[in-house]
């Protein structure tokens, strides 16, 4: 199945790809230079938005380039809307 991609690998942004997961729940995989400091926070933001959108079967892969929470929220919302409307 085709992956949804949103964002970029520019500084301050993140690139997120979303596809269907066969695990029966959301899988969130984060690649970030800031994983030790912010990994849990990034995952929590994404996870909360998945709940808001009632998405529980997505594999979400994130390449973070130091995105602030507002950018993480925006990219996740856009990605999930594209995922749900594909």
């Amino acid at each position, binding site marked *: 199945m085709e992956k949804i991609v949103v964002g970029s690998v520019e500084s301050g942004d993140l690139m997120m790809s979303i596809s269907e997961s066969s695990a029966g729940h959301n899988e969130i995989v984060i690649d970030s230079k800031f994983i030790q400091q912010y990994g849990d926070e990034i995952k929590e933001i994404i996870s909360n938005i998945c709940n808001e959108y009632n998405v529980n079967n997505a594999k979400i892969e994130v390449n973070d380039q130091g995105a*602030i929470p*507002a950018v993480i929220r925006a*990219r996740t*919302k*856009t990605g999930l809307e594209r995922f749900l409307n594909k």
Partner: protein
Amino acid sequence: MVKFDRVKPRKHMLFVPADRPSLYRDSVFYKPDTIMFDLEDAVAYSEKDAARMLLIEILNDIDYNASGIETCVRINGLDTEFFEKDIEACIKAKANMIRLPKAETVDDVNQLVALMEKYEKENNLDYKLKIFIAFESALGILNAFEVAKASDRIVGIALGGMDYLLDLKGSRLPNREELLYARQHLVHVGRALKLDVFDVVYGNTSDDQGFINEFKFIKSLGFDGKSVIHPNQIRLINEVYKPTQEQLEYALEMKEAFEESVKLGKGVFLFKGNMVDKPVVEKQLEIIELAKEFDMEGAL
């Protein structure tokens, strides 16, 4: 009610592509009077949804107004499928102002205002967004007066150079003579309606002297400011606007003489050999206000 009360005149509006997260953050440091987040030409068709979402999330997080910066969003035109969604995003982002591109008729403004009212109400906004109108066609320029007075939300008008030139079937001339009619017409409209008037962008970001020459020229025509595409152009505009120490001292002396004349109950007064009245004093008070903006000694 307004969300943001300006304390300084609009001199520059910095275009920032609305799909670039790092520019939302960095643009604050250049202290433009207005940041214009661009949902239109700067954003690819396939990324309009992502840009709108960034706008909403980031503008709800970064308080540009606290830094004295006004936020404006250039939306896509009425003839696009993005028009209504862009307006909704501007309201959800709680921007200060919307820039309408390619305006041509009063009905364009009416459609915009109707949608703004709809989404302001839906989102329980306790203030009204302002409007800046860009004219980019012969019809738009000719209708500018009627269009610009179509709503009391309109605070300024601008000339859009590229589309206007295409519409005219003209060619770009070395000193932009092809824009002269439109520039002078819009200045008249702006002054007649007490609106700000903004000029086209200057595309060559490495040509400082060319930019300064053009800015001084359009300022002489009566323009308030210019839309800019590079932070360096903000500095250049400030250099032109910043009063000299001599101008400031002259203004301060006149202010003092004016205050003395008020105490004596005089309408006009003699200052350095010339009779001076209120409009002349007001011009000098503007210089003092500008000097304050640039933290000049003596003005504060």
